């Protein structure tokens, strides 16, 4: 089970991307995507923004659960207050684990936002952020 996680800015631009595998059931936390699947992942996530933009008006919560599906791949979404989307591509349903993961990432993102040198829609290149996201992934997914 592999995950592709992307934070997408207000202009459909990726702010942060990461790939990781599951750490449950003896997984080593390494993503196993074939090379051609990589571009497909991005296509799927990008196209699911259409659904996100529709669902966001009808869902009371910021976590929209699973919004889209392509073949056997699912896309879960979390919308922040600033219209930044957290999108996670996964292949098994795990609503609660993903919610916890998103909540952690939201904290991390908010802290990044507090950085006076960071502006909205800027790419997040911080190694600390990256490390902490991976940690959260290891913990929940």
């Amino acid at each position: 089970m592999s995950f592709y996680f992307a934070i997408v800015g207000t202009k459909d631009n990726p702010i942060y991307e990461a790939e990781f595998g599951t750490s449950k059931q003896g997984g080593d936390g390494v993503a196993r995507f074939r090379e051609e699947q990589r571009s497909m992942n991005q296509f799927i996530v990008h196209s699911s923004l259409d659904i996100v933009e529709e669902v966001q008006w009808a869902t009371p919560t910021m976590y929209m659960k699973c919004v889209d599906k392509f073949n056997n791949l699912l896309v879960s979404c979390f919308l922040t207050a600033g219209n930044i989307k957290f999108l996670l591509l996964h292949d098994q349903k795990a609503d609660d684990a993903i919610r916890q993961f998103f909540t952690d990432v939201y904290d991390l993102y908010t802290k990044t936002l507090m950085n006076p040198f960071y502006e909205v829609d800027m790419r997040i290149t911080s190694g600390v952020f990256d490390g902490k996201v991976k940690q959260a992934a290891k913990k929940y997914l």
Partner: protein
Amino acid sequence: MSSAFPSLRTRPTLPAPGVSRATSVYLRSSTTAPVHSSVTSLNSLFNQTNLNSPRLPDGEDCKGLVCRAFVPHIAVHVSDDTNELAREKGFVDFKDMLRPYGESIQGRITIRDSQGISTTHDDYGVRFVSLTDVAGSGEKWESGASRAMNGSSEKAASSGSGVFQGGSVEEVEELVNLHMERAEELNETSLPSDGDTPTFNQSFYMLYLRRILSALPLSPHETFSHPVACVIAISSRNANPIDSLRSLYNSGNQLPLPNYLSTDYLRYYVLVHDEDRDDIKKSTILFDQMKKHFGLHCHLLRLRSGGASVISDDDAVIVPKSQWVSAAEELHEIRSRDYEDEQPTTCLPDSDATGIQTMVREMAQVSVIPFMERCIATWNDQVASRRRGISGRFLSMSKRYFTASSSRNSTSSSSNYDALSQSYPPSSPEAQMRKLADYAFMVRDWRLAHSIYELLRTDFNNDKAWKYHAGAQEMAAISLILTGTGLTSKVRADTIAPMLDLSCYSYLSRCSATYNALRCLLVAVELLRIRGGGAADEAATWAIRARDMNAQGTIGHTLITERVGACYTIREGIGSGAWGARKRKAAMWKMLAAGEWLEVGKLAQSRRCLDTALPVYQGSRFLHIHSFMEHLKQQAGYTPLLVDLQDGRRRGGGDGEEEDSDEEEGVEIQSETLHAGFKRKSLIVGREVEREVENEAESGLDRFVDS
């Protein structure tokens, strides 16, 4: 979304666009189009919707296509001298002469539905088939299993004997491939052709769909291709006309028709009068005699004799090409044409063409349609209402419960279904009801058709007549979509989706009838797609299902991939942000299709897909998307004409990426001159020069000279 948008729309006063612009930048998420406010005034909301609405290109009347695919079939059984007459005029036989005129009947056809309300249709048609072909093709459909086992040998046999039948996905594919290759050649070597051959828009898919729906194969489980009427014709050259009519009648009955075919169709007698060779007085007397013998369903067709007329003749008109020939036949025709130098265009004198048109029209309006209306009324009264009534319900229920409990053996004996030949005899109430429903469908009384299919669904299920069951499910879903009222998302999810699903399941895993399953899905996709909104989403889902079915070869697969994109394209957004639109999804599927076209070496197709997909991905910061896009562009030899134009338009709005996109274009122009046709090149070079003059003249001129 449905709950959110109405409230937005009904709010009377919203801040003016300008006020909230600054704050709303972060709320928006679309890359293209200049920034509008996320909350707009009521007026601009509606204006924008109109502007953004995608327009259907011409020739994409999908509902019409489906309606015209399911029309009454009329068998033709004529004497040899009549065929001889047609042959002298340059046709294969008499049927061949009638066929093009049957496909679109001139003028309007009035049909009364079961409620007694008349409706007129101006795109009605009938199909003429040869009665001997019907008899010949039926045997293959005796059982699905035998066909599946020796399909290839039958194909060879059928093309040898000259019987062309639809229902073969491979042949359709082959045909589309052939057309596509020709178009590809044309596009590479010369200017894109205009009009004659199906060039680029959606038309390759439409051709595919049309050929899938052409020449519906004869099968026990649906009666669309069973003849509704039979034309029995003799010519005035005949020595003893009444006798030969009688023998035609008898030989028509004695033909080895498949036993699931009901033979009580309408007989329509035609006397073909040869204007130049025979005396009209004699013919009129004969015609009166015919009327006396055979009743009202007679027609006197006056044709000029003489050889084939050519286009240079004074009053010659070109016979329209038959639109609904089967893929096998068209393939055969194209291949035989390859050996000859020029295309044979058959012509008829003007008076002959009008005569045939009038005959077909009269036959449909005065005889065939009323005959069908009568059949519908009778069966509806006698068979369907008995089944629908309280006793019928009790009967079917008791049949289900008591027989099942009493003994196993009696289940089979109590039902009319013959498991061996996998069909109902034509006199059984089930077969008659299916016929009733199909007739109702063909005269476009969707509501009645739907109610009968609904009844049949359960009956066939109880009898475990799976192909019948699948067919009834299919048509129940399609007729429900065609009724067009009250098709809410709930109905779609609760009624139509399970019906289509079950139908596909039955066709595929119980009968291994991939053609039928594919047809069912594609028709449903088209009908749902034109409804727009949420239905278009479902259309896309079903199209994806059809794509995953793997019943088609690569061409069909890619065409359907592209169609998924088209399903998403049709969905309009609401408001200036076009919320609820499926722009990105459409682009993704087009991109996938572009990739698949490349794999099968159809560069022109691939470029066309890229044209529509690229605007969405232009300037995308997703690395893999970007590299994938560049890769495709390079492989397809893509020229950024469309993107370029839109870029230029956007530049008026002004965003920050002008420099690097200019660089890109400079590089692209070098490669495009190698590939593109003359028109495109000159256009771009012209624009190029214009821009260069503004900027740096020297380098631009160098490049211009180079190219």
